[in-house]
């Protein structure tokens, strides 16, 4: 066998192995991303054969004429900021507690993780029922405690609806970060903890100078994953309020969907998508670079 073909063949085999995954990924994930950018500069109603190029008109429209966009942006930012902090603080506390010498750890872990594996749309349905103004759990509870004055239409009141949905999100997402933190805690060197104790470090000292520094990579992962999860909040809002009442729980991801798929203004929907994609990329690209370097170093 000639030398040249022997060095060329393994590479070709590699591309054959790679091809199915790469083709599907390029066609149905990468292409739509390029398409949404192109679409954001066009006008298309979903029916006409050709989309018309309109330059920046869609962006101008969502920023100046769209009464919902700014509200949805504000909701997305608030939601994301809180979703990155609140549930993760609970997760972190739970993980630290479940890492101690206490009985029933695995059952407790199951309880906190169970909501994670339930379909978001089912979580939405469950909580919508608990918030039911007449027969739901919350108002029943308040009534029995004699707090009739606190009774609210949790999902029908513009002032509280978004936060009612957020509580359901917290219930659903705490377990996910908890498991990541628990795995991170497994990686904290026991000898290091022991050494710190022998040197006279108390509970706080061990936590501050051994556990916390060792958890830095985990925290990074949790931070980015919950950030992305909250930017794309869709199912739970769709299932609980559909963006209402009066668009008060509208978010960018769902507003993009609503404009394109329900109102038939694909160009404007695409412009909203691009705004959200840009926000995501700004956050995610440094992280991807960090992951890439770590993979490189691991090799």
């Amino acid at each position, binding site marked *: 066998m000639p030398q040249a073909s022997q060095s060329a063949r*393994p*590479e070709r*085999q*590699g*591309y054959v*192995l*790679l091809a199915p*995954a790469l083709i*599907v*990924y390029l*066609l149905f*994930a*990468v*292409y*739509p991303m390029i*398409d*949404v950018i192109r*679409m954001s500069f066009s006008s298309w109603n979903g029916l006409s054969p050709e989309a018309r190029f309109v330059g920046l008109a869609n962006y101008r429209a969502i920023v100046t004429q769209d009464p919902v966009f700014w509200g949805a942006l504000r909701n997305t930012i608030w939601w994301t900021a809180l979703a990155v902090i609140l549930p993760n603080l609970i997760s972190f506390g739970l993980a630290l*507690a*479940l890492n101690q*010498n*206490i*009985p029933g750890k695995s059952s*407790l872990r199951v309880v906190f*993780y*169970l*909501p994670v*594996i*339930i*379909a978001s749309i*089912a979580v939405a*349905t*469950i909580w919508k*029922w*608990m918030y039911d103004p007449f*027969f739901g*759990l919350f108002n029943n*509870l308040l009534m029995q405690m004699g707090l009739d004055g606190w009774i609210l239409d949790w999902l029908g009141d513009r002032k509280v609806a978004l936060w009612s949905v957020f509580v359901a999100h917290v*219930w659903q997402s705490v377990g996910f970060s908890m*498991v*990541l933190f628990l*795995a991170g805690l497994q*990686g904290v060197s026991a000898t290091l903890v022991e050494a710190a104790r022998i040197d006279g470090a108390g509970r706080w000292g061990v936590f501050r100078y051994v556990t916390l520094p060792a958890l830095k*990579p*985990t925290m990074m*992962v949790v931070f*980015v994953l919950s950030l992305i999860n909250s*930017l794309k909040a869709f*199912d739970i809002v*769709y*299932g609980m309020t559909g963006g209402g009442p009066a668009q008060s729980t509208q978010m*960018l991801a769902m507003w993009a*969907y609503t404009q*394109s798929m329900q109102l038939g203004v694909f160009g404007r929907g695409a412009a909203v998508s691009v705004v*959200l994609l840009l926000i*995501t990329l700004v956050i995610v690209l440094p*992280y*991807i670079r960090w992951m*890439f370097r770590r*993979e490189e170093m691991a090799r």
Partner: protein
Amino acid sequence: MTLFSQAFRRVGSAKVDPVLVALWISLILLALIWITPFVFIVFTALKSNATVMGASAFMPPTELAFENFAAAWRRGNFSTTAFNGVVITVIKVPLGLFISAMAAYALAKVPMRMNKALFALFLFGTMLPFQVMLAPIFRQVNAFGLINTYPGIILPYLAFGIPYQVFILYGFFSAVPKELSEAARIDGASHFTIFRRIFLPISLPVLSALLILDFVATWNEFAMALVILQDPKMWTLPLGLMSFQSQFSSDYGELNAAIIMTVLPAALVYLMFQRYFVAGLTSGAVKE
């Protein structure tokens, strides 16, 4: 009390630590709050509508109304949605893992000129949120004429599942010592053979973790199905539940029975394969 005889003590100490006892009690209380929604759902699912409206929400059902389940199954078209869910999951999950494993092997073990760039391309995909671009995905599937078909939903599911799986498996394959594959190469085996005979078998633990994780994700997926499967005959369980919720929201017992039937398969799978979940989540994400 053997369970407690060792607990609540710090390492190397024989005394019960009061801080740990207090911590444990607060954990139990929080866990009770966490399971309250489930208890409430089960209670309501077993009550007739008259009982739901008449008695307190916290009263356990006295006469178990199991007929709610049969009625919800019929009205919610569960035989159709469950069947579609099974077909889509059973095709998508193994197929996706297989092609991801092939790609990950190629990237990790076959010397190619574009290795790095291609890996970076997949890594980028792990962070790409599809909820953001439902309309262009719809356009693309529509361009292939696949709206309301099984391939129409399976292909985008594959596309957005591949990057994460490639990433995890790439990490796993990279850690396999060179000697293992090079010995086989010297014996004249092709990469296809090495992948099938050596790498696929040794990655079974990772593959099963990813399998369970992906099963639950696919079974539960809502947003993509919403835009692509518009014909009720093609709906999956989450779509069926959503429609049930908006149509029969005041049939409380049946609605809650529908919730339980939607949620149960994934919950059972999780309870049976718990340890794989943690392995699947963390094998690539959190490592030293």
